[in-house]
């Protein structure tokens, strides 16, 4: 695995300040997305995976949402010395992430090739130049992702003209048709003039992908792109995304709550629970050897086709707690089968390397603990 990060997120905290209290939707998340690789983010509804994605493009509605801390570094060019670090000392990389060592901090000083998205004005020109051009996004709801009043082509061409200077309308239209063809839409010359309501959900999602790819982004954020589709269409869209990723050489951040989907597309997987990453590893390690009780619970809850008779689905006990009443200590402690009284409910465990490239946030494996800041 090359150590060539395109996007580096360090200790990101996105909070929502609501009347009922503060919702810590993303509470100290750190990860890298490598060039050309796919990072899968998995978790239940409300675990903060979508808010993380929206934070990258600064789409979190403010107010009430707000990035209170952290860095989102977009490295436009390969950082030369970094390639030598390699993954073989994965531990140090992990430590560096949490502590923000001086080398990491020093890198963005005066380096225009890297930009901290968290510092940009969410309405400013800088982030707008990145949206849709360097980082683009595909959303969950294909039925409502396009504006109903304009043709598909109009909306794709709009994006092209916005970011690709020197292109005129006819060229942009050609490119839009070309992209529609690439995503497997039949009769693209006709569909380009179709209105969103004239297309099926699967077709709309393809068109959405065509729009997201229209400016050849470095990173595609796919926020549950297949959740609203039926299973056969789901498989087609996944294959399409993977094929296009190879063709365009882009990185992908793939958000889903579907373990089967993540196993298929991701290189690296991060499991999120209530705003924090609880486990992160390569896809094979995570599925073969899950460490965190939450990940184990998730994997156990999948019915296996080869099991002879499955009386009941093994679900994780309890429900995701109310965002205003997150348990003291480890957020998963009230549902955890390995709960250790006096330990798990006293402090939040640190995310530490269990083995090379396999990070877990659990007291079963670590003595390290974060200071308990919450009451």
């Amino acid at each position, binding site marked *: 695995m090359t150590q060539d990060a395109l996007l580096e997120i360090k200790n990101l905290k996105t909070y929502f300040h609501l009347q009922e209290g503060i919702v810590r939707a993303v509470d100290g998340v750190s990860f890298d997305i490598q060039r050309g690789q796919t990072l899968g983010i998995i978790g239940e509804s409300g675990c903060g995976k979508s808010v993380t994605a929206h934070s990258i*493009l600064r789409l979190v509605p403010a107010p009430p949402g707000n990035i209170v801390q952290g860095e989102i570094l977009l490295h436009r060019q390969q950082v030369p010395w970094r390639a030598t670090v390699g993954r073989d000392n994965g531990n140090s990389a992990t430590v560096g992430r949490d502590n923000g060592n001086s080398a990491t901090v020093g890198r963005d000083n005066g380096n225009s090739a890297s930009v901290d998205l968290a510092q940009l004005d969410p*309405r400013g020109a800088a982030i*707008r130049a990145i*949206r*849709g051009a360097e980082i683009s996004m595909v959303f*969950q709801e294909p039925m409502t*992702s396009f*504006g109903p009043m304009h043709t598909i082509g109009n909306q794709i061409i709009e994006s092209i003209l916005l970011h690709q200077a020197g292109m005129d309308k006819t060229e942009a239209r050609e490119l839009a048709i070309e992209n529609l063809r690439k995503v497997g839409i039949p009769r693209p010359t006709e569909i380009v003039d179709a209105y969103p309501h004239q297309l099926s959900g699967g077709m709309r999602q393809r068109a*959405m992908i065509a729009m997201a790819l229209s400016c050849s982004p470095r990173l595609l954020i796919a926020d549950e792109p297949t959740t609203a589709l039926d299973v056969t269409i789901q498989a087609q869209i996944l294959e399409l995304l993977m094929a296009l990723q190879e063709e365009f050489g882009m990185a992908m951040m793939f958000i889903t709550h579907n373990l089967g989907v993540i196993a298929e597309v991701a290189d690296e997987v991060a499991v999120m629970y209530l705003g924090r990453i609880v486990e992160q590893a390569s896809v094979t390690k995570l599925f073969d050897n899950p460490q965190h009780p939450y990940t184990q619970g998730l994997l156990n809850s999948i019915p296996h086709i080869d099991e002879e008779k499955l009386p009941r689905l093994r679900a994780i006990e309890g429900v995701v707690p109310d965002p205003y009443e997150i348990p003291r200590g480890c957020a998963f402690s009230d549902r955890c089968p390995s709960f250790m009284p006096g330990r798990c409910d006293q402090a939040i465990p640190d995310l530490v390397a269990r083995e090379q490239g396999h990070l877990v946030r659990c007291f079963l494996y670590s003595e390290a603990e974060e200071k308990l800041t919450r009451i």
Partner: protein
Amino acid sequence: MLAQYIGRRLLLLIPLLFIVSIISFALIQLPPGDILNMEVLRLRSAGTQISEEQVEALRQLYGLDKSMPEQYWLWLSNILLEGNFGTSFTYVKPVGEILAARVPLTAAVAIFTALFVWITAVPIGVYSATHQYSLIDYFWTFISFIGIATPGFLLALIFLWVAFVLFDISAIGLFSQQYETAPWSWAKFLDMLQHIWVPIVIIGMAGTAGLMRTMRGMMLDELNKQYVITARSKGLTEIRLLVKYPVRTSLNPMISTIGWMLPSIISGEVLVSMVLNIPTTGPVLLQALLNQDMFLAGSIVFILSVLTVIGTLISDILLVWLDPRIRYEGMT
């Protein structure tokens, strides 16, 4: 395809207008008695002797002795074939002559009021929605509740009083004195524009207040829709994406209320026009109804209904033209 749709809608107008004419005629016949009862009462109280034969002769002269369907047919055929709306008993003038001066003014007031309502309500609604719960949003909410709750004639009275007491201006009428009886000219038109904004603002107040709220609510619904976030994620500027996507979608109910706006403007206009002494159809209609001047009242009701039907047609055509979802599903 659009031409075909408009053609079909125009054909449908014929039976619709026919029904409208029947209802207009029936409505003015509903109150007991007729114009002659009023006239005879007036003459007798004035001391004039009038015999039953004379009354009967008058009755025949005006065709009041005929059956209802016959009277209706006479009325309608005169309008359609000769453009003759009959004679007003109270004004002793052809109805057409009375209305020729007033209907265009009513239409002008209505159209200008509609424009005023739109031009003010849409931007305010958009601003209120994008700045929800801000001080300015609360300010407009407050204004709109007052606007909805205050009757137009009261607003007109207050306005007249304020203009007179504070600025010593008489805001009555639509023209300055020297133009009141003058024939139409460019100068008279300009003079009218100087005066017409008073009734427009007063009549439009309630409409603006209501539409502002509608626009705000529609925008709040649309602003959270996925396609707005999609547009934002493409890198569009906030203004551009607002205008192109949610505002455009939110305009639908605005457009479809054009048709209903006309009758509400016209009925709201009656009292305001009385107070401000504006020569529109409103005051005449009220007088005609009180006097049972049936040809005059019937013609006004009929003409205003026709205008409303046409307004609805225009709003439907606009909707089809603006909204592809309606264009493709409603027309096939």
